[in-house]
C-alpha cells in the first residue's frame, strides 16, 4: 500500500487559516490501513478542527479515494455539504487529494497527509518500502528482492564496497539488500543470475499515463423499441 503520515496539525491550520468551514474526505484503502484516513482518524480530525473553531460541514470515507469516477458517484449525496464548505481536507495519499481537485475545480483542497512510499506491512503497523514503481520490473533477476528500492544507491550489478557486517553504509538499521539477494539466490540455486551484466535503468519521465483500451467496458447498444 501507499504509506501516509499525518502532516503537522499547525501547518494544516496555517493552510486553512482563512477558511471557516471544512468538508473532510478520507479513504478506506491505504490511508485507513496506515491510520491516517479511516473512520476513526476522520472523526479525530473533525474533533480537532471543531476545537479550533472550524465548522465541519460533513465527513465521508471514500471506498477508493484515487478512483475519480467512483468517488464522484459516492460524493453525490454530499453535494450541499461540499458546496457549503470553504475547503476540502483530504485524508488520503496525494492521489486521493487530487481526486478532489479533479471533481471540484473551484474548491480549495488541502492534504491532511504526507505520502511516503509504496510498502509491505511486514509486521503489525511496520511498513517497509518495497517498490519504487520504476516501470521495468527486475525481480525476475534478483530472486524477487528489489535492489532499485532497497539499495540506497539503486545498484543493479551487485553491492558497493560500503557495507559493514551486512548492513548498508547509509544506516546500521538497514540490511544491505544485495546481501539478502545473495542469500535468496543461494537458497533458490540461482546464483548465476548475479553474474549477468545489468544495463542502466531508463528513468521514467513524469507524469506517466497508462490507458487500457482493452479494459474499457464495451457498452451494448441500446435497442430502440
Amino acid at each position, binding site marked *: 500500500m501507499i504509506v501516509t503520515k499525518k502532516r503537522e496539525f499547525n501547518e494544516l491550520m496555517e493552510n486553512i487559516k482563512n477558511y471557516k468551514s471544512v468538508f473532510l474526505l478520507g479513504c478506506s484503502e491505504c490511508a485507513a490501513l496506515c491510520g491516517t484516513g479511516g473512520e476513526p482518524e476522520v472523526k479525530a480530525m473533525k474533533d480537532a478542527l471543531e476545537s479550533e473553531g472550524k465548522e465541519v460541514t460533513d465527513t465521508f470515507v471514500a471506498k477508493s479515494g484515487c478512483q475519480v469516477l467512483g468517488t464522484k458517484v459516492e460524493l453525490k449525496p454530499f453535494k450541499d455539504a461540499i458546496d457549503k464548505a470553504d475547503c476540502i481536507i483530504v485524508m488520503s495519499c496525494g492521489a486521493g487529494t487530487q481526486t478532489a481537485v479533479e471533481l471540484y475545480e473551484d474548491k480549495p483542497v488541502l492534504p491532511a497527509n504526507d505520502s511516503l512510499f509504496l510498502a509491505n506491512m511486514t509486521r503489525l503497523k511496520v511498513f517497509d518500502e518495497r517498490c519504487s514503481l520504476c516501470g521495468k520490473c527486475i525481480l525476475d533477476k534478483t530472486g524477487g528482492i528489489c535492489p532499485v528500492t532497497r539499495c540506497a544507491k539503486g545498484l*543493479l550489478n551487485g553491492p558497493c564496497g560500503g557495507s*559493514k557486517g551486512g548492513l548498508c553504509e547509509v544506516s546500521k538499521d538497514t540490511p544491505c539488500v544485495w546481501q539478502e539477494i545473495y542469500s535468496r539466490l543461494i537458497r533458490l540455486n540461482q546464483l548465476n543470475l548475479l553474474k549477468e551484466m545489468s544495463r542502466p535503468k531508463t528513468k521514467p519521465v513524469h507524469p506517466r499515463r497508462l490507458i487500457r483500451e482493452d479494459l474499457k467496458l464495451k457498452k451494448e447498444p441500446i435497442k430502440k423499441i
Partner: protein
Amino acid sequence: MNSKKFVVTAEIGPNKGIDVQEIMENAELIKERVDAINVTDLQSSVMRLGSMAVCHLLIDRAIDPIFQLTCRDRNRLALQSDLLSAWVLGIRNVLALTGDHPTLGDHPEAMPVFDLDSVGLLRVIGSLNEGFDMVGNQLKGAPDFFPGAVVNPGADTEAAFEMQIIKMEKKIEAGAKFFQTQGIYDLDLFERFMKRIDGFKTPVLGGIILLKSAGMARFMNKNVAGVFVPEPLIKEMEETKDKVKTSIEIAARLIKGLKDLCDGVHIMAIGWEKKISLVLAEAGL
C-alpha cells in the same frame, strides 16, 4: 602497469575551497617516489574542489594523475561529457567508482544520482574509447582512457566477499584494466582474496591507509565505508609514545606483507603525504 615493476600510487583529496597550495606541495614531495597520483571525487560526499581541475594541475607539474570519477553526482550525460573534458585537459587514467552515498557527507539532502553504476561507467569509458557515446552516436575524436576500478577484499561477510569477486569479474568484462583496493589491514584475508582471483589477469594495487591515531582508526571503523581496522592495530596506535613512527611501521609491515601477493600498492596518506617516502623506504621499496 605492463612491466613487472611493483607499482606505487598515492592519493590526494582536494580541499573545500580554491586554495591548492598545500595539496600541490604534497604532490611535489612525493612525485619522484610514485608512479601516479589519484585525485578523489568529492570524497566521503563532502563538497570539495573537483578532481578534474586538480588532475589538470598535476599534469602541469609533470605528475601522472588518476582521475577518480564517481556515479553519485552526475547523470550519464554529465559523466560522458566530463570524460571528454578530462581527456582534453590531458587526463588519461580514470578510476570508475560508485561513490559514497550523499547522506555520509556534509550535504546529506543532495540528490543521489547513481544514474550509472561503476560497471556501467566502465562500459561507457570503453564505448568512448571506441569512438561512440553510450547510445551509439559517433564521436568527433575519441579518447583512449586507461580505466581502473575498485574492489574491496576486506568485505566482511561471506556474501559480501563473494559478491565483490563477482562484481570484479563484471568490471573486467566491462573494461577495467587495473584495480585499487580500499585500505587493507588483514593480510590473511587479502591473501585469500588474491588466491580466489588468480586467473583474472588484471593488476591489483593493494590499498594502504596511514593510521594517524587510535581515534582515527575508530572513526574510520564507524564512519568510512568499507574500511575495518582490527583491534590489535588500534591498540598499537593507542599504546605507542610515537604515533608517527608506529604508523609508518604498521604501513611498512602491511606493504611488505602484500608485496608478494599483488602488483602494487596504493597509499592513502590523508594529509600525511610527507610520510610516504619514509613508509616506502621502510618497506624496502
